[in-house]
């Protein structure tokens, strides 16, 4: 006797039906839609520590981008079928087309159809491929909608739910499903899909095999769409023809934890469901009339500081019930409960409904997998470290502020940095508020796809430290540009991978020596200087870095003056930015020797005639800041640069460089101010008119409050007044004396 049970994946109603049915007919073997390679994994299903939602991960060890997940929630009919079988010591097998064939076939079609590199690498990561990816789209969009429309529903999904999922009277429901699907398959034949045919043929083959092994009572659990194809069996020969000579690749499987949010179709999952949290609820409380759900909602609201009384809950449940009876439903569904929540608890506003959706309807649940399951060693190491450092993997995000002066926090930070180096992006580092280099803020959120990343990186080593180190070394070896390696080094130092740091530094040294491009060197140095500052908190190789910085700076000094000539405006702008950063970096280092050399370089640049004017202006300005150019010398250089013989565009560029970003400095630095101010004052009218555009151009770079203040300063005389004597020509002392008594009286001074 063969029983075909057509189900909806992750349908709690289907799960209940399957469970009841199996308990009633007591089959001696259960066949479930799924990859046969995962058969050995089935023995774990009744393990106490395997807590759904979990997924079977099937991957191709030599090409990890090609992998598939088969998620199971507690309310998945497949899960119920498997647990039934395990609990009652009945045989249970997966019966879908083996993933090895599936992937191999896909490889072939891919080669035929696509130019290499046309598609992204992960064609099929987390599509729930066996269960109706192909069928689900067709099934959901077209045919079922016809049945639903015939029954007067506007949505196929909803119709299915009311017809089969919420059904109380379960007799013959599976026959009805098969019959309905049969009609659909006849009325709306799907375009020939070779893969679908193969899959159904393989399922039939598995069923025949079971019959051959003399099983008497066979229960088959499959997606509803496939049910008719398994009821009416063609001749075995046809199927065998079809399945002959299929290509095959090697695959491996394991259990991994899954999350409810990954189960929802919001995350792009083909056979996804809209409300895993709600399904979980009705699976555990099938008799709930909405009261328990509303109580959950109220509890959630209360934790968010929103007053919700018991009376609210009562009213909401009542409204949901009357809505259900108004719509001729025997019981309030999620929609009725949501509408009641919004109307009664939220005063009609829809804002809070998002909260309910995230926390309850989808919910943040994450599954668990027992320690003993054979896992890649890297995965084990990560789990060990997670446990030791008390950093649990959660589906919801959690923030950690780490104080690197504490031993445990430092270790956590090292661990997280290492994972990041391995591209296992569990944690995300955020800017931390406040000063000091000893604090780090991390936001951690586990995501089931990380499992595949971990397996992929397993090639590099069996522990996090080892894998990260080797991975970085390999990357540093491949890197062709200085900035890549410095970027790598910046992350490697906080990860405390000493050998990798050494390799990075070496690689930087080699690249720097080979690089003729001074700009590239200048881009890298500020980052390295930043890195060397870590030395204060972390016991790392800051000295090593400093050595490199020294040699790189020397190289820069030598070739910089030549690099500043004959530049376009844009290139000069870019170089100016680098100058700015490099100057900062030199100042941070505070090494007299390096600073001295830097100043000499600047002098050379400022003095050279063919230096790009903007750079020359900026270099002059830096020299003035270092107090190497002062007083008359500065005035002379300034006037020289701005003299009438210089073409206006050059003069403008020089001035722009000279006053770069110093609107505020101009306000407070009297010397700079009087320099510019006096220069403007001595210009005759004609020259003034001709330089006005240049000044405008420079000053337009300042922010508008700065400009306003500068204007005020000019108006009131400002510091410029100090240099300019007051008008003193015609002071009539006699007349002035006459006013004195009045002023004294006003000031309250007796004369």
């Amino acid at each position: 006797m063969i029983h075909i049970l057509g189900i909806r994946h992750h349908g709690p109603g289907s799960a209940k039906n399957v469970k009841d049915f199996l308990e009633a007919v007591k089959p001696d073997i259960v066949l479930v839609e799924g990859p046969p390679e995962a058969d050995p994994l089935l023995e774990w299903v009744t393990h106490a520590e395997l807590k759904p939602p979990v997924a079977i991960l099937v991957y191709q060890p030599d090409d990890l981008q090609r992998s598939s997940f088969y998620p199971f929630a507690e309310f998945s009919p497949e899960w119920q079928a498997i647990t039934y079988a395990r609990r009652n010591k009945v045989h249970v097998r997966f019966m879908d087309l083996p993933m090895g064939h599936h992937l191999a076939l896909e490889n072939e079609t891919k080669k035929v159809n696509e130019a290499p590199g046309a598609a992204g690498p992960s064609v099929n990561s987390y599509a729930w491929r066996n269960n109706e990816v192909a069928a689900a789209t067709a099934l959901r969009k077209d045919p079922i909608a016809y049945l639903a429309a015939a029954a007067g529903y506007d949505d196929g999904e909803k119709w299915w739910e009311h017809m089969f999922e919420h059904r109380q009277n379960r007799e013959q429901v599976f026959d009805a499903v098969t019959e309905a699907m049969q009609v659909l398959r006849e009325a709306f034949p799907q375009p020939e899909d070779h893969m679908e045919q193969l899959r159904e043929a393989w399922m039939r083959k598995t069923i025949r095999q079971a019959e051959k092994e003399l099983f008497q009572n066979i229960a088959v659990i499959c997606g509803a769409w496939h049910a008719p194809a398994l009821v009416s069996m063609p001749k075995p020969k046809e199927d065998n023809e079809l399945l002959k000579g299929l290509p095959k690749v090697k695959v491996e499987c394991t259990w991994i934890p899954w999350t409810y949010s990954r189960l929802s179709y919001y995350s792009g999952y083909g056979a996804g469901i809209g409300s895993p949290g709600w399904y979980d609820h009705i699976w555990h409380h099938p008799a709930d009339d909405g009261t328990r759900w509303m109580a959950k909602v109220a509890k959630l609201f209360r934790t968010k500081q929103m007053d919700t009384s018991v009376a609210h809950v009562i009213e909401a449940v009542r409204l949901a019930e009357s809505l259900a009876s108004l719509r001729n439903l025997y019981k309030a569904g999620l929609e009725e409960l949501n509408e009641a929540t919004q109307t009664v608890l939220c005063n009609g506003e829809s804002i809070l409904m998002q909260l309910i959706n995230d926390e309850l309807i989808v919910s943040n649940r994450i599954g668990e997998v027992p320690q003993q399951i054979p896992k890649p060693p890297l995965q084990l190491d990560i789990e060990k470290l997670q446990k030791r450092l008390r950093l649990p993997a959660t589906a919801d995000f959690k923030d950690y502020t780490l104080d690197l002066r504490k031993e445990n926090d430092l270790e956590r930070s090292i661990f997280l940095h290492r994972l990041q180096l391995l591209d296992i992006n569990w944690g995300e580092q955020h800017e931390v508020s406040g000063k000091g280099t000893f604090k780090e803020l991390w936001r951690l959120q586990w995501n089931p796809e990380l499992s595949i990343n971990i397996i992929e990186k397993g090639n590099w080593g069996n522990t996090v430290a080892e894998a990260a180190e080797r991975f970085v070394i390999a990357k540093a070896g491949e890197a062709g540009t200085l900035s890549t390696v410095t970027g790598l080094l910046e992350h490697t130092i906080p990860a405390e991978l000493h050998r990798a740091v050494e390799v990075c530094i070496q690689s930087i040294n080699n690249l720097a020596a080979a690089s003729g491009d001074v700009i590239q060197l200048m881009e890298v140095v500020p980052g390295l200087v930043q890195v060397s500052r870590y030395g204060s908190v972390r016991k790392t190789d800051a000295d090593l870095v400093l050595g490199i910085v020294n040699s790189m700076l020397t190289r820069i000094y030598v070739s910089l003056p030549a690099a500043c000539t004959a530049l376009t405006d844009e290139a000069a702008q870019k170089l100016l930015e680098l100058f700015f950063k490099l100057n900062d970096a030199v100042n941070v280092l505070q090494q007299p020797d390096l600073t001295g050399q830097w100043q000499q370089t600047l002098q050379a640049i400022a003095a050279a005639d063919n230096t790009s004017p903007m750079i020359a202006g900026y270099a002059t300005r830096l020299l003035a800041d270092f107090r190497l150019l002062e007083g008359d010398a500065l005035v002379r250089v300034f006037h020289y640069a701005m003299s009438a013989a210089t073409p206006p565009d050059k003069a403008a560029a020089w001035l722009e460089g000279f006053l770069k970003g110093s609107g505020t400095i101009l306000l407070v630095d009297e010397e700079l101010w009087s320099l510019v101010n006096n220069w403007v004052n001595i210009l005759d009218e004609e020259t003034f008119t001709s330089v006005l555009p240049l000044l405008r151009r420079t000053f337009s770079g300042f922010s508008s409050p700065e400009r306003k203040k500068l204007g005020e300063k000019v108006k009131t005389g400002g510091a410029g007044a100090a240099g300019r004597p007051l008008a003193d020509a015609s002071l009539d002392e006699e007349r002035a004396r006459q006013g004195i008594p009045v002023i004294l009286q006003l000031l309250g001074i007796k004369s």
Partner: protein
Amino acid sequence: MSTLLRQHAEQLYAQELEELQKQDTGKRPHNWKLTPQAVVTYLTGGKLKNGFEVSPKYIGNKRLMEIAVATLTTDRALLLYGLPGTAKSWVSEHLSAAVSGDSTMIVQGTAGTSEEAIRYGWNYARLLAEGPSEKALVETPIMRSMKEGKIARIEELTRIGADVQDTLITILSEKTLPVPELNTEVQAVKGFNVIATANNRDKGVNELSSALKRRFNTVILPVPDSIEEEIDIVKRRVESFEKIMELPAEPPALQEIRRIVTIFRELRSGVTTDGKTRIKIPSGTLSTAEAISVVNNGLAMAAYFGDGQLKAADLAAGIIGSVVKDPVQDKLVWQEYLETVVKPREDWKDIYRACRDLI
């Protein structure tokens, strides 16, 4: 044809209600004229089994009407909330007409609404002559609907002073209205409930106390989702207006209605329909109801002062009247809209000219 200026919903749609009642075989809540399902059909329209067509009164989300009707079957009162002109009073009138067959049990909320207007008042001549007695008591619509088991309506609930609002608490929770002067009370008969409306744009309103809020289920009526939906609403309402006012004008072309609705929607949302241009938003609400009255107004203009055909010139005054509520700021907004959005549109030249002449 009735000579009344405006008929109540139950008068105007008497035939529909009667047909519904005939077809309606389900179980009715006590004192309801129709089953809840039939009330929803009355509001959202539909075809009855015998082919009788029920016209839709509320065009929009059917689920909202279901929530409203379901609320009335429970012992919570219904609060319809939303911007002015989103059909709150309209829905309230039709709900009570369909449920109780009577939409006249109405209290208009104002800042001056007193407790006597909600609970009961006294006929002072009688009170002085005979002392407190049943005869000297003046019943309010609320008291009467409690006695008769009908739906009472309160318009603009939030405009009523907070202390007066709270007199509703006893009525809504205990379902009784004590009359201490006579040492009696009026207990509500089954079928009694309250539909209140309130709008969330007004200033100087009195927020409901949380005790009172808890007695209401709130349904927020939104502005129409799509332009098609809004055009449909305007069209239907204008048609019924024409019929009642017996205007000798031709019905407006759909084109004309579409333009009005487009102008209103664009100014309301602050962006043109193609989503490309940002527009300043005027201070008025520019609801669907106002669009309807602009078209009605234009029809009247066309009928009596024009050639009987609705032209841009007939509409212009109405549009400006509803957009420019603040003579200084809104005028600028409107002029900007006129010059940047209306003017460049090829087939809107007539409306541009008509509006520009008026400013």
